[in-house]
């Protein structure tokens, strides 16, 4: 494989994933509105297009054509940069997610992720993918923090302060919750982590390898990281009038919006990869005969299904749980999740050590 | 192919800028940041030398530096908050109850 083909493939993958992702994000929003509406005995959007299916397009058009208001007292450079930072980082982290087994196209070995890097004579996985994702999500906080600060508004500042504190606090538990998985798979490469869970549903980290505690820690911390209910204090409408993005409108607001949903997708993808066997089918152990095309497609299918499940979980929880109080949030993070995740590491490593 | 001395010179430049910032900046937080810049420059030096000697240890040191930097940051910012509480300013020249 030459550098040129590498670049061509990369661009193609980039285009596809970006398209799918942005569409998905748009429709996740619709899904959320619909589902939450149903939970609340409402109909949700149903005017634009059949079942409101064109609602996202309408929303998008509205965002694009709305007047872009920049309040007088904002600190302009950062005010403009903040949503971009948020969106760019959110999109970047997705680019590291592998969403299926490698394909062979026209004799070329093509990994199903965007950032597989060129090592001089072939394509290679990034072997510290998980770390890079963690790194990117950890600097994702700047988008939120800077937007609130640069808006020069009380509510925004409070929101971004909350966001920074919350993200820092929960990042710790998030990172530690993954250590159990790393101990089991012995690698930081996402692909290898998924590979280590192949074969049967029992091999999934969640089921067979006792990482369900880690999973719960992860999912809670991740909700906090994405500022979703029940941890949505940075943008709590009732207290902070939407928090850090109070002063934003039109496209800039849309960028925050998209970034948040992209992050949700990333979290869902990571949950799938780390705890639920990634693209492995739950029925792999049954060895069901299938057509070749299905064999090629099925990993992506299963991956998408699982991700969809977690997205749904997000929505479900949003419809069910109330918001934490701020002190509860902090106490929960530091006094419950953090010790628990450390305990999880200890137990996991003990079990591994005893087994070996 | 880049001469290793380029990396080292870059490290030295960053370190020197850090020192200069330490000397001329007046905001406590910025002064503290310039220290972080100096530590980063040292990290670059460590990694470059690790490359020269082909030794893992050079990279291990970087971790320790990072841990120390993180610990320093936690304590340092706490001290800064304490100073701000009592003095309501972050300018080193106004933090002058103790004459130098």
């Amino acid at each position, binding site marked *: 494989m030459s550098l040129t083909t590498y670049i061509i493939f990369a661009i193609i993958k980039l285009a596809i994933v970006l398209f799918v992702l942005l569409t998905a994000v748009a429709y996740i929003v619709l899904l959320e509105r619909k589902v939450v509406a149903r939970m609340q005995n409402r109909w949700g959007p149903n005017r634009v297009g059949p079942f409101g299916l064109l609602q996202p397009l309408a929303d998008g058009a509205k965002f694009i054509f709305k007047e872009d208001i920049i309040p007088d007292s904002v600190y302009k450079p950062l005010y403009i940069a903040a949503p971009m930072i948020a969106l760019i980082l959110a999109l970047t982290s997705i680019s590291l997610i592998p969403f299926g087994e490698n394909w062979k196209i026209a004799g070329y070995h093509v990994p199903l992720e965007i950032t597989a890097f060129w090592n001089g004579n072939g394509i290679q996985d990034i*072997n510290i993918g998980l770390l890079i994702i963690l790194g990117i999500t*950890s600097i994702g906080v700047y988008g939120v923090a800077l937007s609130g600060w640069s808006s020069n508004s009380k509510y925004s*500042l409070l929101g971004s302060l909350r966001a920074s504190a919350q993200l820092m606090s929960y990042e710790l538990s998030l990172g530690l919750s993954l250590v159990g998985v790393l101990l089991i798979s012995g690698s930081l490469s996402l692909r290898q982590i998924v590979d280590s869970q192949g074969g049967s549903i029992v091999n999934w980290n969640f089921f067979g390898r006792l990482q369900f505690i880690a999973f719960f820690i992860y999912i809670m911390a991740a909700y906090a990281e994405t500022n979703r209910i029940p941890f949505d204090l940075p943008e709590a409408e009732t207290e902070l009038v939407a928090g850090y993005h109070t002063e934003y409108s039109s496209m800039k607001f849309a960028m925050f919006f998209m970034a948040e949903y992209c992050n949700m997708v990333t979290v869902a993808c990571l949950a799938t990869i780390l705890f639920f066997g990634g693209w492995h089918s739950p029925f792999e152990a049954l060895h069901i005969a299938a057509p070749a095309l299905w064999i090629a497609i099925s990993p992506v299918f299963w991956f998408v299904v699982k991700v969809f499940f977690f997205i749904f979980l997000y929505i479900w929880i949003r419809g069910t749980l109330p918001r934490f109080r701020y002190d509860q949030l902090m106490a929960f993070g530091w006094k419950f999740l953090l010790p628990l995740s450390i305990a999880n590491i200890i137990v996991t490593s003990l079990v591994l050590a005893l087994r070996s | 192919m880049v001469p290793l001395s380029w990396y080292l010179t870059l490290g030295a430049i960053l370190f*020197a800028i850090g*020192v200069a910032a330490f000397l001329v900046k007046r905001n406590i937080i910025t002064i503290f940041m310039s220290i*972080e810049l100096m530590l980063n420059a040292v990290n*670059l030096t460590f990694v470059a030398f690790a490359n020269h000697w082909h030794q893992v240890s050079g990279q291990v040191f970087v971790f320790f530096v990072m841990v120390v930097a993180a610990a320093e*940051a936690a304590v340092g*910012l706490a001290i*800064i908050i304490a100073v701000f509480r009592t003095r309501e300013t972050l300018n080193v020249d106004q933090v002058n109850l103790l004459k130098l």
Partner: protein
Amino acid sequence: MLHQVLFIIFGVVCVAGALNLLLQRHPINSALSLIVVMGALALLFLLLGAEFVAAVQVIVYAGAVMVLFVFVIMLLNAGVEEHTRGSRVAIFLGIPGLIAFFIFMCWAIGSNGSALGQARIGSFYVPTQELGIALFREFLLPFEVTSVLILIAIMGAVVLARRER
């Protein structure tokens, strides 16, 4: 060639960021420039074959330490730096000393230029595992000792930042 181009790009970004830290008057701008420097440094680490270090650089420095800085800047609402006359001692002794130091360093590095040799992408690459082994064998003691350090840092931060009862 690629290496040189990348080095020059990131190196220039580093220096520019560092200078920006020096020249900007608002702490938050300085903080952001520092984050840029750290990011560029992480990429330089990658070029030198230290991928794990690069990742940790981003996570710890850019993602944790600098967030803390930004957080404190926001919390204390630090404004634009006032121009006050600094310590004259620092200027009159510090700057010449700094220049001397820098020249000295350049001499020390320059005189060893050939002995230092060239860095080549991929010529030295440390897998994470090897790093871990080193960390838990030769460097076990420092590793364990850092726990005391962190303990102190936690205690210190709690003590100092806690409100008076």
